[in-house]
């Protein structure tokens, strides 16, 4: 059994939406919970996929785990240390161990710096290697991400999407991290390049023993790269378990809808039932992301086909009984009254 490298317990992150001096003085303004009590852990050298629709809080989890933003409450234990209590200065040496690949291809690539300078800077953040050592490491990094030497003199704007992504990955690898949060690493890329990057990430994991938190809405890719998958809905994990179980034997109705909508696009048979229900949900909630007025009880109830089938049981909308994650065997957890 490998070691647990990251353990997240009851993580919460709220954004207060206060703008302007007046609302600031009166203290008015909304508080929007982006992440609402999330717990999970990552073992060394494994990949955990985090899926869900846009706005469900997956990116916020990634950022909070690395403390790019401070959590409202909860613990994030990285390698035995709770990083939520560390000061900025104490945190900096830990930064080299946990890195993030951002969705935006330009993240970290200063438009006014050449690729060589970007990599050099990354190599010298945490240590002071000699020039020869830097040159050697840059060559090594280029090799790891299969990028041509000639690109070193380029500015980011002169690179293609795939090359930018590779430079971004090289920049992250420069500090020799152990944990990488990959936030939608392929969504900004062309299909043929996506496959290259997915392969590259898997190679690097094997080669360097990396641990990934793989955030994506691309379900087949997540299923391919992850050992475990967590499904998020409106700031909560509603189901988590082994990738193949999540994909093929989902217990939570939302997971079912996610995967079947993928199949829907491909097959000509229309799953009328799911469609009706989801259309109804738009009617009910004015779009999906109503954080201000989450349905009381189970927050998925307004969109839930099961809820409808079961004749709208009161337990689903009872504010006192929001379904909690419970184990249904083999470490597969699900937050549904009827799973």
């Amino acid at each position, binding site marked *: 059994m490998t070691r647990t490298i990251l353990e997240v317990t009851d993580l919460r992150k709220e954004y207060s939406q206060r*703008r*302007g*001096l007046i609302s*600031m003085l009166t203290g008015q303004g909304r508080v929007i919970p982006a992440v609402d009590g999330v717990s999970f852990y990552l073992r060394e050298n494994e990949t955990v996929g985090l899926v869900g629709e846009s706005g469900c809080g997956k990116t916020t989890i990634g*950022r909070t785990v*690395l403390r*790019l933003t401070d959590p409202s409450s909860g613990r994030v234990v990285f390698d035995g240390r709770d990083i939520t209590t560390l000061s*900025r200065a104490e945190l*900096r*040496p830990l*930064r*080299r161990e946990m*890195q*993030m690949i*951002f*969705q*935006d291809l*330009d*993240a*970290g*690539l*200063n*438009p*006014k*710096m050449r690729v060589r300078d970007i990599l050099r*800077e*990354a190599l010298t*953040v*945490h240590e002071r290697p000699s020039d020869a050592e830097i040159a050697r490491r840059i060559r090594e990094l280029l090799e790891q991400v299969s990028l041509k030497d000639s690109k070193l003199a380029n500015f980011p704007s*002169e690179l293609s999407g795939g090359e930018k992504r590779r430079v971004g990955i090289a*920049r*992250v690898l420069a*500090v020799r991290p152990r944990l990488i949060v990959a936030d939608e690493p392929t969504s900004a890329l062309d299909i043929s390049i996506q496959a290259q990057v997915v392969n590259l990430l898997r190679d690097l994991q094997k080669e360097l023993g990396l641990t990934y938190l793989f955030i994506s809405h691309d379900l087949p890719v997540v299923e391919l790269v992850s050992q475990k998958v967590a499904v998020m809905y409106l700031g909560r994990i509603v189901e988590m378990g082994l990738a193949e179980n999540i994909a093929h034997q989902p217990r939570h109705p939302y997971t079912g809808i996610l995967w079947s909508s993928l199949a829907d696009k491909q097959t000509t048979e229309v799953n009328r039932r799911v469609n009706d229900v989801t259309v109804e949900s738009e009617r009910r909630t004015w779009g999906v992301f109503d954080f201000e007025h989450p349905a009381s009880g189970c927050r998925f109830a307004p969109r839930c086909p099961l809820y409808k089938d079961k004749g709208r049981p009161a337990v689903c909308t009872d504010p006192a009984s929001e379904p909690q994650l419970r184990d249904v065997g083999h470490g597969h957890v699900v937050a549904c009254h009827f799973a």
Partner: protein
Amino acid sequence: MRRYVQTPGSIGEFSELALRQRAEPLDLVYVGYGLLVVAVVVASYMLGAFGWLPDDPQAMNVGLINAAPFTSGHVLGTDFLGRDLQARLILGIQAYFLPGLLAITISVVGGSILGILAGYRGGWFDTIITYFDNLLDSFPRLVLILLVIAAFKADIYYVMVVVGITGMPVIANLIAGKIAFLRQKSFVEAAHALGLPAHTVILKHILWLNCRALLVIQATLGMAEAILVETSLSYLGFGVQEPTPSWGNMVQAGANYFLQGNFWPSTAPALAILATILGFQLLGDGLNNLLEGKRRR
């Protein structure tokens, strides 16, 4: 008719061209003219500061009043007291040059600090700074200057402090906007994630690498503003006083003879103002188009 021509070359040779090759010719003209003006102004300032003038600016020649250009050794003619206009124009630069630099320094430094606080720290700072900007924008600049003159004294350095402070909001907004743009690209966040200390991110990545062009542009535009304010005040009689020359008081003094048909003593400094302000403005705009990619199309 618009022409599009491909540079001849074989496959794989269409590398990025040098800036001057892909720039709009008009922008190059703007910048070229602006640089010329800057060079002339700086050189003239030096000449004035060391007193290397073509003629004594205070020497009166009552026999040669309001002379036309090229009259007996006076390349630009003489004014109403027969003083050499060329020498006085050169000396007039003293009136705004250092004060203008002071104003620019205040607005660039102050604006950068405010902009970084607003853009980088955000939240409270952003709100407070927005209100501060709005507050400064509420005063017509010249009225505020007159208020300061009334309260303190008609000193150009006091005035330029006001000009500098009122110039801060523009720069603060531009920098905050630039930071917002970089943030949107997750740039700031990625730098933090890598473990770069905040001061490196702010000073190196944001200010030096991404805002320097913008600050140079704003500084040139700021100089145009400073010249405008100085000449206006001198014209109104609050700036440099006769017999010390300033472009503004030269226009004012010459204007008394304007309606008699003696345009030149007033027009020469006016043209100097026009050419200089235009130079700084065109330089700013041209650089904006070239460096910041703000195309007119």
